[in-house]
């Protein structure tokens, strides 16, 4: 399968890339890992006249903690997240999610930011970022703006990203001590999209929950945040009753559709069970275990 013809641009700097996007507008698409975009081009679901390949802008490949923020650049590939000792030690929800995305060869190429910008309701990273209360920096030739992950998604494969903007940085509040997380994903086989997945991020504070983030994958028109479940946990001791209640609220927040992967009732129940397990695992990790 061949994509429709396009003109190919391989800028070496971010300014050059932003200049091209500004000039080309809706006729251009940004190409990062290409593991979603290239299949779409081949199937001709998309046929942009121009592709702006950012793979040669080397300074876009960074994962670093600076000024109380974990910063992730647009060229960070799933593989880098999978292997990051920083993420493994303090950002469990990310470290859990990374090896569950697609398959190892796709992870060598696909990027976190690209996956987020693609906004597949079955994508994993958006959910993880919702749980982490991330900010997304959207940069254009004329400047940059920052939006919350929860304000970024606007529907299936839709975001507030403008054609002249690049998702230039993902910003996550630096994990404090007593932070734990987990990502639980049900898939029919390796490489399949999630039937259901749940992201949990917990910040404990003196034996009580300081803040809780819970994101849901593949059970709505976009990655969802289980806000009522999150709110139910804040300031409380994380006992079995609190966990069970939050899990029920998360299940209620899900908006699953029946398909070949399962019925509405089944998926909702998986959300409940995974939220419960995820909270327990996150809590254990926040206390220095697991």
């Amino acid at each position: 399968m061949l994509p429709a013809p396009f003109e190919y641009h391989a800028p070496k700097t971010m300014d050059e890339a932003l200049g091209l996007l500004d000039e080309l507008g809706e006729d251009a698409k940004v190409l990062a890992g290409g593991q979603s975009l290239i299949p779409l081009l081949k199937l001709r679901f998309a046929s942009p006249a121009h592709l702006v390949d950012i793979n040669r802008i080397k300074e876009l490949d960074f994962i670093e903690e600076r000024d109380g923020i974990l910063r992730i650049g647009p060229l960070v590939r799933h593989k880098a997240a999978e292997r990051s000792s920083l993420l493994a030690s303090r950002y469990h929800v990310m470290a859990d999610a990374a090896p569950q995305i697609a398959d190892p060869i796709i992870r060598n190429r696909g990027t976190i930011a690209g996956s987020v910008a693609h906004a597949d309701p079955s994508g994993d990273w958006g959910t993880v970022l919702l749980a982490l209360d991330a900010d997304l920096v959207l940069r254009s030739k004329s400047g940059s703006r920052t939006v919350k992950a929860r304000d970024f998604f606007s529907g299936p494969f839709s975001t507030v990203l403008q054609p002249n903007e690049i998702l230039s940085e993902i910003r996550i509040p630096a994990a404090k001590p007593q932070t734990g997380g987990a990502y639980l994903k049900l898939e029919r086989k390796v490489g399949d999209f999630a039937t259901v997945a749940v992201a949990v991020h917990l910040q404990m504070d003196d034996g009580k929950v300081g803040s809780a983030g819970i994101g849901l994958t593949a059970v709505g028109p976009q990655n969802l945040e289980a806000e009522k479940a999150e709110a139910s946990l804040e300031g409380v001791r994380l006992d079995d009753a609190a966990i069970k209640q939050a899990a029920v609220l998360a299940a209620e927040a899900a908006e699953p559709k029946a398909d070949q992967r399962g019925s509405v009732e089944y998926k909702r129940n998986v959300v409940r069970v995974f939220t419960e397990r995820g909270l327990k695992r996150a809590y254990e990790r926040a206390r220095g275990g697991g």
Partner: protein
Amino acid sequence: MGQPITVTVNGEKRSAEVEPRLLLVHFIRETLRLTGTHIGCDTTHCGACTVLLDGTPVKSCTMFAVQADGQQLTTVEALAAGGTLHPIQEAFKQEHGLQCGFCTPGMMLTSLALLEEKTDPTDDDIRWAISGNICRCTGYMNIVKAVKSAAAQMKASAAVPAATAAVRS
């Protein structure tokens, strides 16, 4: 229309003018006439088209040839240097790691990348590493055996570092 690119393919610099939409796998098979790299699903699932780009396995049906400009490409043809089978090829043969052979080029290149990183992989490491390469004949058991056997062979053989370097250069 054509865009000039130069790719180091199995140690040899190859230049061509390509249309930007030309997929890397078509460049390999049709422009370079290296037909050891197979096209299976053409939808990023099966891994039959796996090649190494700067040493890393990628699905060549899901990349454009222009993106490989200036980089090192390793295809299955690089394995048997000077007419001698690579230990991985020898092990796939000995352990019956293939039946129809369609997935085998991708399977072997993924295995090569694994063994360069982990000289003594567990069954689990191997199964995890090849989870992006689909085989519809073997049931994977003999592939795992073959990769283990190749690992042992490569570790034992003092000549291996040189052979691997030749593949990469």
